[in-house]
């Protein structure tokens, strides 16, 4: 057998977190996902709520500012904290 190429994933602590009780994504809200310039937010299939999918945040805050229920919160990403 030849050597097999593989990819491995690194993990990060998500700087952007969502309050699952407040998030109304299940009612069709996608505001934060729409406004994020980096396009790093998505709906988590497991919960039906918004979540930070990728560690590519500019800590710019449109998601937090525009969320109608105050359900999403941006912390300064760890490397800059």
């Amino acid at each position: 057998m030849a050597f097999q190429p593989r990819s491995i994933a690194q993990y990060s602590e998500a700087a952007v977190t969502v309050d699952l009780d407040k998030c109304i994504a299940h009612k069709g809200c996608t505001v934060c996902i729409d406004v994020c310039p980096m396009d790093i937010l998505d709906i988590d299939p497991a919960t039906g709520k918004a979540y930070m999918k990728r560690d590519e945040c500019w800590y710019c805050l449109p998601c937090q500012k525009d969320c109608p229920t105050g359900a999403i919160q941006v912390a300064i990403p760890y490397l800059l904290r």
Partner: protein
Amino acid sequence: MPNDIKVIESEYDVVVVGGGTAGPMAAIKARERNPGVRVLLIDKAHVKRSGAISMGMDGLNNAVVPGYATPEQYTKEITIANDGIVNQATVYAYAKHSFATIEQLDRWGVKFEKDANGDYAMRKVHHMGTYVLPMPEGHDVKKVLYRQLKRARVEITNRIVATRLLTAADGSVNGVMGFDSRTAEFHVIRAKAVVLACGAAGRLGLPASGYLMGTYENPTNAGDGYAMAYHAGAELANLECYQINPLIKDYNGPACAYVTGPLGGYTANNRGERFIECDYWSGQMMLEFYQELQSGNGPVFLKLDHLAEETIQTIETILHGNERPSRGQFHAGRGTDYRHRMVEMHISEIGFCSGHSASGVYVNERAETTVPGLYSAGDMAAVPHNYMLGAFVYGWFAGVNAAERAAAIDFAPIDAEQVEREKARIFAPLLREHGLPPLQVEYKLRRFVNDYLQPPKVTRKYEIALERFAEIREDLQQLKAADAHELMRCAEVAAILDCAEMAARASLFRTESRWGLYHLRVDHPERNDAEWFCHAHLKKGADGRMSHLKRPVEPYIVPIAEQEKDAYDRLRLNPTTAARAVATA
């Protein structure tokens, strides 16, 4: 070739690429100029919150307001700040249209600071004249623009990453190609005129934090616009005049001396002493900053701890509310209270940006590039120190002139081969079973940019950089994307590589030092006006490689007296004036 890639073809008179600052203005003004013209605005992000001003802005850095400054004075100031290498016609055209643009934005609902008489409350920050107009309630700029886009019935498509322009047989631009960063659909858009407004090349250097997206610029602005213009045959001007900014260390956002300066704040060394007379960003200012860092007097700080409580509260309201509103949280996390502690600053990663310095795609005073049918505006268009208002003004020019061209000509046929070639290039990473992750390739590339290209510029280091960049160009053939989003990061890394190579080659071409730290060449430390008082242009040569040419500086419209020429070289305070400046602050 990926046959299952869905191709979406469309046709518009004018296509504007980039819906940040300049782009929306261009789209609106194109429709106003000629309501019969169909205009499409595309953006990689969502136009509602895209670009440098996504969360608003603290102020206009370069407003030319009657009673405070004339277009002639402004043109003179920018000519001097940019060491004489400017096409004054472009700066002058900006300055003359500056006030009309402010009034337009004001009518649309953008809020500027006014005094008790209802006049604009101008502040002095530049070395010579008064050009700063604060916008303490400037957080709604994007909302205002979006409303006008809807009113003007501009069509908008979000989440499209433009990757290449299409060119007709005569060399003119006749369309745009790109893909949807969510669905991976391929877009081929025919056009009679294209406006590029893709912002700065903000992901060239790597921020000191090591965070890929912790850039000064909005990281959507990866330099795609520069790369597209280059591949379409446009000339790029003075790319060696990098953007390097004095920023808050780690946070990498502006410390905002323009906001705090008029209120008594200033840049200080580790003893809390002022060392530069003027906080307006220029290459010379950055050189003084760099020297202070190197001298043992560093770090450099923004000093506010001497100000009254009331003033500090005003500063906090502005700086923690607009533009980069997570700043307050950053300071809180580190226990930095302006009342007691100075804010540590640092030198940013390098980038291209004409909004802040002078590196951009060449445009004339009609926002035309050297390629017919291609217009450009904003940070990526070479009108020095143009900032936000310059983006609006040149967006306006680009929109009007693109609409006029579109009304006068027919669509040119699309070259199917260009389309196939681009489709193959863009989608290859999606088809690979295994390969290199785009963010890792980007990290390595940008680490080399820091290691080898960050000024002071050393010839040998630049030559090594070119070798490393050539290797990374090979690596691009092994990129792997798992989905459409990663495909966007793959497209971006190719654009960043083009920009990195342009930065290196442009810097090697100009064998002198100029613009303070921006182009400080250790092997050619002197300014050499005899040979280099000229623009240095870069373009794609007939052999497909980067070629260089010198262009004479256009005759001045506003003459500069001999004794004024080096006003920006006298920024460093000597000990006695330093003491006086502190005392009067």
